[in-house]
């Protein structure tokens, strides 16, 4: 009996892994695919379809096919958990300056390691204001 690679099964699994990493390395950079990860979820949907096709196709070594399929689905489940649930747990930030309060000053380095002072920016004649955008960071 010839050993044939179950392409749908393995490509489905590979696509599931690729979908996961594609979000954190690419789709997350663009608000349209970051806020609701529709592109990634579509990739996961294709991956799961492939896995199920591969599972049904599997003759012999069905345990392996089941394990691969379940792992591929678990990657998707983990992604959904990470994105939709884990991120809701944010600190209260009750001490954050409210509207009408003074924004704490700072001097921080820019991407060229040059210091940027809030007070200095606000003092520039052409500046009506500054918008401070605090973000998680590049990960």
């Amino acid at each position: 009996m010839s050993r044939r690679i179950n392409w749908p099964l393995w490509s489905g699994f590979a696509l599931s892994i690729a979908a996961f990493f594609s979000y954190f390395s690419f789709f997350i950079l663009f608000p349209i695919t970051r806020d609701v990860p529709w592109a990634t979820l579509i990739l996961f949907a294709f991956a799961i379809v492939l896995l199920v096709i591969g599972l049904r196709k599997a003759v012999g070594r069905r345990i392996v096919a089941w394990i691969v399929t379940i792992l591929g689905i678990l990657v998707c489940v983990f992604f959904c958990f990470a994105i939709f649930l884990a991120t809701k747990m944010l600190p209260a930030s009750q001490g954050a300056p409210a509207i009408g309060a003074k924004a704490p000053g700072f001097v921080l380095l820019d991407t060229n390691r040059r210091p940027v002072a809030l007070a200095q920016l606000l003092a520039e004649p052409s500046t009506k204001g500054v918008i401070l955008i605090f973000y998680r960071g590049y990960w």
Partner: protein
Amino acid sequence: MEEHLAELRAAGIQPLAISVDTPEESRDLSKKAGYTFPLLSDRNAETIRRYDLLHKGAGEHGRDIARPAEFLVDRNGIVRWRNLTGDFRIRARPEQMLDAARQLR
């Protein structure tokens, strides 16, 4: 954000992004995403703490990072608008910021 930068600048508002990333990490991000506004490095999260935005252990390798938030600050250093988001992915839509920004004198 990048698309609305021209409108923000026209309204006389300077955007500043702040995170715990090093200047080098920010430079990579800025290049990749094509940002033209400054990305500032608050490595030890001192400023982040002063704004009470610290999110302990939430970063890569358990790093302390900032939770996302935006503050529109006027010429006198007063906060005129702010947005504390409940979800790291959904940050303020520029339209909201622009409305507040246009009210500044």
